[in-house]
């Protein structure tokens, strides 16, 4: 990769700044002109998506795009660089932002939510930070955007402004800021100072594996600090902010807590494993298996917890924690196919999980129901929604011909490359657990009969809620059939 041609281009910055411009428009339009306000959100999302997509051909041709913003320290630039994994993540986030915006319009208006201007502004801000993480070229840059994301999502998590929101917000910020300020910051500072031969930039291309100069113990400490420091990745025991954050409105849960925020966490962890430590260093590290064990434990435990959750959004949240474990596991496997599979899983899981969240939100908008046990027979009233739910669930479980299959396949292949048979077994068990906690929802909805069958209030959610979820459900299929492009982007040959 280090020989890749470098193209200087301002487009990454545009993708970063489009949400800011959108935010100015959103605030200017304000509560008095809701249509204009949402138009601005659309424009910002579309511009961002268009810019990101326009970068795809360059990356597919094997080059990377760079843009230098400013010098953080004399020895560290704030550098944007678009490479395969980053672009894949950016594509997913920006495309799903369009869908989410459409969905949010229906959802927020359907529930007559307050302070929608604030909601859309900070939503845009979060997406800018997400782009920043996706396009960062070194550790410090990624840290900046990571913190920006933590703070800018706080008003979204506490959007309801009631006691529950306050508790959720406290847990959210408590976990994220504690880990990032107390674990991540020392680790970063350690990396930047203690490397011999002066300061490093911790660039993701140039300085891969330089941490290998540390002593073994230091390496393990650093690895753990990073793994838990990026608490957005939801590795247990730093996971409990995520169920707490589900008090946010569903569009936030959907995009941020299934796609942007948590994926930023695992993406950062992936960067650390793949582009700071590098496969070579990890393979030679004696204690490295422990991270795989932690990730596996997270997968299994969270799946078991998900089984017992009756609140649909909480169940999905624990499912998300498990799926994030896959990605961390893939990154920790430290083989090409494993890490490629991890990046692919970011996209695949995002598409599947956002569908599930959309469905949960659509059910809430249409019927006001939050609990799995209340969903009996709802599938007959809301066939489109529940159909999409089925597709999303199957994709998350990992059945062909849906996207989730590809990534799990590569994760398993990566594990086999390393002769880690137990990882494959973990994957199998967890897939089975996925079946147990996701399919009953659909089954209940379609095959159980409800006592209130003739309740006339049961109907499909507004079209602006339904269309996005159908689109993302379709996306799950598309990801399966276009997987060769994605594989090429992450540097794997199909």
């Amino acid at each position: 990769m280090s020989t890749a041609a470098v193209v200087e281009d301002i487009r990454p910055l545009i993708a970063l700044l489009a949400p800011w411009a959108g935010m100015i428009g959103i605030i200017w339009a304000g509560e008095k002109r809701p249509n204009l306000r949402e138009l601005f959100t659309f424009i910002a999302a579309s511009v961002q998506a268009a810019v990101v997509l326009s970068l795809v051909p360059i990356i597919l041709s094997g080059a990377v795009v760079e843009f230098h913003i400013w010098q953080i320290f004399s020895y560290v630039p704030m550098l944007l660089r678009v490479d395969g994994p980053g672009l894949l993540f950016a594509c997913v986030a920006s495309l799903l932002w369009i869908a989410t915006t459409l969905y949010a319009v229906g959802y927020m208006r359907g529930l007559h939510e307050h302070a929608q201007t604030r909601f859309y502004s900070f939503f845009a801000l979060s997406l800018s930070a997400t782009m920043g993480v996706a396009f960062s070229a070194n550790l410090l840059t990624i840290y900046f955007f990571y913190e920006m994301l933590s703070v800018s999502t706080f008003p979204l998590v506490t959007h309801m402004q009631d006691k529950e929101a306050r508790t959720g917000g406290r847990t959210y910020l408590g976990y994220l800021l504690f880990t990032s300020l107390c674990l991540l910051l020392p680790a970063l500072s350690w990396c930047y100072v203690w490397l011999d031969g002066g300061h490093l930039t911790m660039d993701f291309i140039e300085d891969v594996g330089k941490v290998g100069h540390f002593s073994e113990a230091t390496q393990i400490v650093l690895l753990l600090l990073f793994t838990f420091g990026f608490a957005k990745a939801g590795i247990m025991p730093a996971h409990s902010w995520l169920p707490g954050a589900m008090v946010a409105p569903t569009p936030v849960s959907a995009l941020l807590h299934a796609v942007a925020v948590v994926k930023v966490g695992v993406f950062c962890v992936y960067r650390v494993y793949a582009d700071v430590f590098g496969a070579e260093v990890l393979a030679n590290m004696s204690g490295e298996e422990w991270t795989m064990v932690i990730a596996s434990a997270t997968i299994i435990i969270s799946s078991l917890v998900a089984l017992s959750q009756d609140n649909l959004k909480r169940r999905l949240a624990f499912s998300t924690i498990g799926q994030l474990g896959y990605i961390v596991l893939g990154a920790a496997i430290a083989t090409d196919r494993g890490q490629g599979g991890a990046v692919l899983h970011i996209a695949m899981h995002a598409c599947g999980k956002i569908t599930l969240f959309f469905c949960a939100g659509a059910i809430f908008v249409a019927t006001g129901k939050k609990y799995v046990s209340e969903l009996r027979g709802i599938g007959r009233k809301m066939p489109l929604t529940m159909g999409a739910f089925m597709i999303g669930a199957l994709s998350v479980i990992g059945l062909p011909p849906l996207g989730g299959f590809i990534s799990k396949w590569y994760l398993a292949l990566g594990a086999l490359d390393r002769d880690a048979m137990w990882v494959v077994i973990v994957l199998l068990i967890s897939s089975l657990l996925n079946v147990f906690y996701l399919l009953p929802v659909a089954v209940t909805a379609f095959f159980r009969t409800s006592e209130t069958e003739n309740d006339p209030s049961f109907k499909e959610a507004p079209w602006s809620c339904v269309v996005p979820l159908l689109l993302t459900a379709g996306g799950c299929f598309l990801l399966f059939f276009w997987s060769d492009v994605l594989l090429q982007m992450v540097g794997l040959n199909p």
Partner: protein
Amino acid sequence: MSDHIVWIVLFPLMGAVACALSGALSKKLCYPISVISMIASVWASVHTMMQAIESPVHEISYILGGWSLDLFPRGVGIEFRADLLGALITLVVTGVGLIVTLYSKVPVQRETPGKEPMYYGLFLLQICGLAGIALTGDAFNLYVLIEVAALTGYGLIALGSNRAAAATFNYVILGTIGASLYLLGVGYLYLKTGTLNMVGIREVIEAQSLYDSPAMQVAFVLVLVGILIKMAFFPFHAWLPNAYCHAPSTTSCLLAPLVTKVMIYVMIRMVLTVFGVEFSFESTLWTEVMPWLVAVAIVCAAVMALAQREIKRMLAYLIVAEVGYMVGGVWIYNYYGLIGSIFHVISDACMTLCLFLGAGIILEKCRTTHFDGLRGLFAKMPLTMIGFFIGGFSIIGLPPTCGFFSKWYLITGGMVSERWEYMVTLMFSTMVMVVLFFRLIERIHLAVDESGKNLGKGHGDLGLTEEQTRFDEAPLTMLVPLLIAASIVMIIGVYNQEVVDQIEVFLRAYNLPTGVSYK
């Protein structure tokens, strides 16, 4: 000519005299006079900074009275020296002074009606004293200027309510003890070296290698303890919270960002320039002991800050904690720690300014700074709150505010010296600050009250009256300085390298350990 350096001090002095004289004519003249003299002073300090950067030795020396420096040890006349550190601090002092002067119009009229000439006179003399402290190269002149700053400080605080006067008394006693101990220490130095010039003293110490002399050791203790008292380092902090909390709001806006920081500058100056690195760090036990004291100080101050229910008082304890940061940055004894310490002096001045200006505006508009009075203020004063939060984020250390960068260097310094106790307390207090500020944000943004109950029905109804949610910003003379301060916090963060470059140039003259990897 390098006359600018003395104009920095003279402009506020002349402004103060003009204010006192103009009181007979019209009280309305005081504000414009103060603003003009502060603008002039800032202009002079910017020039001094530029000259210091451009000069080949990176410092400007100005002998008042035109005496020569040829003697060894030097010290016939009083010297004004602006090396890069002094010039930076001067710039901070005058800049903060200008912003607070701009801000002072409304609160001074309200809080101290009829006393404007005296208020502005004392106010400008305070800035004059602080800027002089940052510039002077003479140990005794430093004492005089410390007293100028201290006396104006007492006056500015006691001007307020009776409660403020009661708070001032402690400040007077402790401040006098601190300054007198410093004076005594300077006396010891003079006794052993025969000069008062800072560089001269170090030259003698090095020439006669006075490292083990008991008198010098005690002189160091006296000077250091004196300065620690003046900067409200933890066991000696008792004067600070009450004094800043009950002072008129403009006073606390000026004193809180500057006084403690300038005293930390004095400590750095004493450690590096007067006693020298070898004496301060290697022939005393302080390097071993101080980080532990600092750790205790930070933890205690942070915990006390947690217990407060009033913004100004909380901020006062935060300052005590921040003082711990900076003192620790010096005493972990390495290159990065000192960069962090000096940079934190600058950034802490800016962010404390931001927070106190915000608190002043809240006091002005709501007549209270108690936490309970803050419910839902964001709807009423969004711009003020944004400015206030930027200061808060900087205290927490979130990028790209300047607080992040200073904390970065402090952490790096702690790592290089392997001072884990300092690191851990730094992390601890960072988390305390997260709690402090997000607790405020909950009050302001979520409008919850003490018991955590939401008084409204949710979904946008926060239980606020119409009056509480109507957009009602502070007057522009208060709001604009706050926003300027907030943007300075961001700008120093973004262009931190420009500042750190100057600090590095300054520190390279001293032989400091740089850790494992420094080139």
